[in-house]
Structures are given as structure tokens and as C-alpha cells.
């Protein structure tokens, strides 16, 4: 044990002396490793960030909610064909609402972007959503204070609204918004409630910059009854989702008058599809990242091997001296392996030192943190590359003939 330790320390000492003696050369040699480690850690950080953002925002879509829409998520079909589909209409939503047995609740939704105004304060591009009183159940959303509008208010097409937290915060700084009247587009609406904060979908569209009004009111102020809407169907439970989907499909086909040979002219979208699309994106990012990482580590490894051969040749005499005073071949092998491992490890650490501040920058755009596992992997990978690429040179060093090595000038 003691024996191994003295040698180990000597090996470390030699490695660091050698690296220090050739600082510039060492850093240049380790460049491939540095780039590899930077790319693998940044990729890991980015994927971590995407996952976090995704998991947070995808929750708003609801895993057990079906979205009956004109456009399929994820695309793939002929754009023009879809474009020319007939709109989904409110009667179809009513049909689904009435007939679907596997649905816990059904909400139609139509949207428009308008100005919201209260006293002198103006908020542009607020999304006005026309829906029914079941909206909260369908999407699993809660009211922060006040209430949502009732079915009676919906049926009567009353000018009431529930506003998103962002709208509330922007229009009412020191006032209680409940009971106040705001202008949405050209109509006046009385605020009955404020919806709790929901965040955004994939960091793009805020879900809180919205105002919800009865859909029957929406048809008066923003679009006709024959304008396109979407239908959201919450299944009774997660395990009924597939059956609910088939059922809704049947109801929709009937409501839209399709005969059996015709294909669906609507899409039933669900969270699952986004997850799939997202996973594909994740795989692509990981693939590209791993390719860059692999390539730079490979090139870096070759560079390390090359420089280690140079180092062995330069130090042939030293190897001879060490052998002459009793270093066994194994020790020489170990010494050069440690040197190349130390070189790569240095590259790895420099790589981490570069990518850590970069990960903080990424964090500004996409809330994330460099995963600890990635740091560990980076260290292990650079050690591994060092050992692999150092092996041949180290082996050559250890096989030198002591007399020849001593004679080398």
C-alpha cells in the first residue's frame, strides 16, 4: 500500500512537472478535450433547460384533455388540404357535449387578440377567449379570487369576464379588479374573477395575458356563430382517454356529415403528441451534441496520443534513468498513463470552467442549471480519454530497453 502510494505521488509529480514545463503545448493539446467537454456540458444544460421548461408548460395543456381542432399538432399532412377544411363550429361542440359519455367536461374555445383598457391604462394584444362555464374543470385551472362566469351568464351572453393574472397586474396596480368594468376590444365587461398564474407554453405564449368571456358573448362582439372554434374534451380519467378519443371522433364525423369512406377533416390533438415531437427534438439535440462531443473527443484523443508519443521520445533518457535505478516497467507505464490522464483531466476542468459561466448565460434564456451528473460524466469521460489515448505511448515507454534508453541523447 505504502509502496503504491510513493510511486503514485511520484507519478503525479512527474505528470504535473511535465505539464507545467510545457504549458502552452499542454493546453493546445488538450483543446480537443476542452471543446468536447464544453459541448457535452452545454448540451446537457440545454436539454435540462428544455425539459424543465417543457414539463412546466406542458402541464397547462393537460395530459387527459383532447383538443378537437382544424390543425393537427406536429403537422405532416398537406397544408392546403387542411387549410381548406371546414371550420369547427359551435354546434359540433354542443353535440360532443351532449353525446360524449367518456367526457368529464367539454368546453368550446374561440380566441381573438384585442386591446384591453381600464381608465387610462391600455394593454395591447390581450387574448380574449370565449368559452363556457366548465372551462375551469376542463383545463384544471383555478380562480385566484372572485369566480368564473356561470352557465347562466354564458347562456345569456352576459358581458362578464375572468382575467388572467398578468392582465390583472398590468391594469390594476393598487385596486381590486373585482367588480370593475374594463373594455375588451369595443365592448365593456365586468370583471368577476382573476385566474391564478399559469405561466407560459414553451416560454413563448403567456397563458396569463388573457381574458375569458362567455362564448355566446364572444359570438356577439368578436366573431360570428359560424366562425371557427376548437373543442376541448377532458376524459373521465387518463385510462379512458383512448376511448374518449374514438367516441369524440365518431360524434364529430356525424356532426360534420362525413360518410364512412371519407377521411377525418379535423384533428384530435393531445399532450402526448407534443411530448413525442419534443422527444424527437431532444433526441436530435442530443444526437448533434453527442456527435460534436464524440468528434472533438476523438480528435482530442488522437492529439493527446500524438503528444504523449512526443513526450515519451523526448524523455527516453529519463525513462532509462528511472529503469536503471529500479523502476519496473509497470511503474513507467503507470507514470505515462497518469500524465495523459492528468492532461485530459486538465482539459476537462478547463472545459468545465468555460462552460459553467456559459450555462449561467443559458439560464437567463431558459431556466436551467448544469446538471451535476453531467459534471461527473465530463470528468470521467476526460479521464477515460486520457487513459485510452495514453495507453499506446505509455506502453511503448514501458517496453524500452534500459541500456538503449540510457544511451539516447
Amino acid at each position, binding site marked *: 500500500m*505504502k*509502496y503504491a502510494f*510513493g*510511486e503514485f505521488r*511520484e507519478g503525479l509529480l512527474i505528470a504535473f*512537472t511535465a505539464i507545467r*514545463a510545457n504549458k502552452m503545448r499542454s493546453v493546445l493539446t488538450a483543446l480537443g478535450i476542452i471543446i468536447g467537454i464544453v459541448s457535452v456540458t452545454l448540451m446537457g444544460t440545454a436539454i435540462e433547460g428544455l425539459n424543465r421548461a417543457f414539463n412546466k408548460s406542458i402541464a397547462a395543456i393537460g395530459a387527459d384533455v383532447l383538443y378537437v381542432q382544424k390543425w393537427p399538432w406536429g403537422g405532416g399532412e398537406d397544408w392546403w388540404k387542411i387549410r381548406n377544411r371546414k371550420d369547427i363550429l359551435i354546434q359540433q361542440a354542443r353535440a360532443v357535449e351532449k353525446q360524449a359519455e367518456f367526457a368529464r367536461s367539454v368546453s368550446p374555445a374561440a380566441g381573438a387578440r384585442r386591446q384591453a383598457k381600464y381608465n387610462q391604462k391600455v394593454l395591447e394584444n390581450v387574448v380574449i377567449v370565449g368559452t363556457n362555464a366548465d372551462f375551469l374543470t376542463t383545463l384544471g385551472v383555478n380562480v385566484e379570487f372572485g369566480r368564473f362566469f356561470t352557465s347562466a351568464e354564458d347562456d345569456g351572453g352576459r358581458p362578464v369576464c375572468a382575467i388572467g393574472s398578468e392582465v390583472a397586474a398590468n391594469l390594476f396596480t393598487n385596486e381590486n379588479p373585482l367588480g370593475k368594468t374594463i373594455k375588451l376590444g369595443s365592448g365593456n365587461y365586468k370583471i368577476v374573477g382573476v385566474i391564478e398564474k399559469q405561466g407560459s407554453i414553451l416560454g413563448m405564449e403567456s397563458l396569463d395575458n388573457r381574458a375569458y368571456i362567455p362564448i355566446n358573448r364572444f359570438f356577439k362582439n368578436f366573431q360570428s356563430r359560424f366562425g371557427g372554434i376548437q373543442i376541448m374534451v377532458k376524459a373521465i380519467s387518463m385510462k379512458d382517454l383512448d376511448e374518449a378519443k374514438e367516441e369524440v371522433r365518431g360524434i364529430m364525423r356525424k356532426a360534420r356529415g362525413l360518410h364512412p369512406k371519407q377521411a377525418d377533416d379535423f384533428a384530435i390533438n393531445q399532450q402526448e403528441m407534443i411530448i413525442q415531437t419534443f422527444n424527437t427534438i431532444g433526441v436530435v439535440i442530443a444526437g448533434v451534441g453527442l456527435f460534436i462531443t464524440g468528434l472533438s473527443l476523438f480528435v482530442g484523443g488522437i492529439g493527446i496520443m500524438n503528444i504523449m508519443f512526443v513526450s515519451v521520445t523526448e524523455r527516453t*533518457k*529519463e525513462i*532509462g*534513468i*528511472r*529503469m*536503471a*535505478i*529500479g*523502476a*519496473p*516497467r*509497470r*511503474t513507467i507505464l503507470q507514470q505515462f498513463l497518469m500524465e495523459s490522464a492528468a492532461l485530459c483531466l486538465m482539459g476537462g476542468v478547463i472545459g468545465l470552467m468555460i462552460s459553467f459561466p456559459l450555462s449561467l448565460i443559458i439560464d437567463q434564456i431558459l431556466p436551467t442549471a448544469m446538471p451535476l451528473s453531467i459534471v461527473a460524466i465530463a470528468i470521467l469521460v476526460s479521464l477515460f480519454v486520457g487513459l485510452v489515448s495514453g495507453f499506446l505511448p505509455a506502453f511503448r515507454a514501458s517496453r524500452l530497453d*534500459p*541500456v538503449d534508453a*540510457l544511451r539516447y541523447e
Partner: protein
Amino acid sequence: MDTVIRLNNITKIYHVGSEDVHALQSVSLEIHKNEYVAIMGPSGSGKSTLMNIVGCLDTPTSGLYELNKTNVSEMNDNQLARIRNKEIGFVFQTFNLLARSDVLHNVELPLIYGGVSSSERKKMAREAIGRVGLTERIHHKPNELSGGQRQRVAIARALVTQPSILLADEPTGNLDSKTGDEIMALFDTLQKEGNTIILVTHEEYIAEHTDRIIRLRDGNIESDQAVQNKRVAVTTGKIG
């Protein structure tokens, strides 16, 4: 007297291209404990080859080599490394110190490979450095020392493991004659203290420090004689 080295019909053949070079034809000799031996002979006569075999840096093509009654000629690389570490102290013409390490570390090195603990190592190395009179230079690098001082460091490194034999291949070959004399005085002292020493030299006046001169020619022992009028060291072995 104890036999330290026994060589029986040692041959060494180098293959150079299609040619065989018989560096040692058939060498047999015995060296006893505390002997002081010089090996002489013209260039290319096989002196270094013999020293390398005795020092276990090289293995003979055939023949028997016993070191302290153990057969060395059959040992593998690892066993030879161990013998070099424990039993042999080698001093070279070109000193062969590690340029980037200071005196202390150079002298410590055999003990590191010998698995001696750090504190023990430092103690032994300091003592050996003291014996060659370089205590003041303990943290100097080789390039801050004169040739004579470097050779003293090499001798300290050879001594530090308390080996069975000290081997020196032309130890004064790179030194001026005055410095050479000083190194020889050091060897004289070490021999008097009980070490067994074999050294290679070209110079009669160096060889005359020893008790026995073995002359080689074309890989054979030409003569093996006791020294008649032994030269006595003029300077003392310890010079700071």
C-alpha cells in the same frame, strides 16, 4: 571471503543487421565482498557490456550470473528491476541525473521505487548526500552544480539503498583530472567503509586506486591482476 558476483562463461552477442557482434566472448570471474576492482581495455572491448550485465541492465546471451548466490541470468524484467533497485548502485560517465529534480529528489528516487516511506526516505537521502559532502546543495538542480558535484549526487543516489555493489562506468570520463581525483578519493573512502566497487576506466592512474585490474580485449579477459603500487588518495573524499 563472501562472493558477491560470480560470472561463468558469460557471452553477449548483438545482432547488427545480418552481422553478429560478439561483445563478450566468454567471460568468467568472481568478485568478493569489499573488493575494489578496475576494468580496463580499449574502446569497444566490452567493458560497458560487462558492466550492464553485472548491473542487471542487460541480460547475457548465455552463461551464468550469480549475484549473492542467486541466479540472476534467469530472472524476468520485474525481478531484474528489483535487483537493480536493491542490490546495485550504478554511476554513469554522464551522471544521468533527472534535470528537473533537485539533489534531494534525485537521491530519494531509488527509495521511492523501493517503497520506503517518505520520512525514512528523506532521512536516508540526507545521510547519503552528507556522505558525498553536498548537504549545502540539497535543493539545487543539477544545472546549478559543477560536473564533480553532479557526479557526487549520482554517487549518493547509488549509495542510498545500501547496495551490494557500486558499479561505475568511466565515472571520471567527463571530469577534469583534479575533479576526477576528488571523485576517486570519494570511492576510496567508500571502499574503506566496506563497499564493493567495480569501475571502468581508461586511465592507468585511476585504475591504480583499486586493488585489482581486469583487462578486456575483444570481449575476452586478457589479464586479471592485483595492483602492485596502489595509489593513495591525495585529497580527502569530503569536499563541500
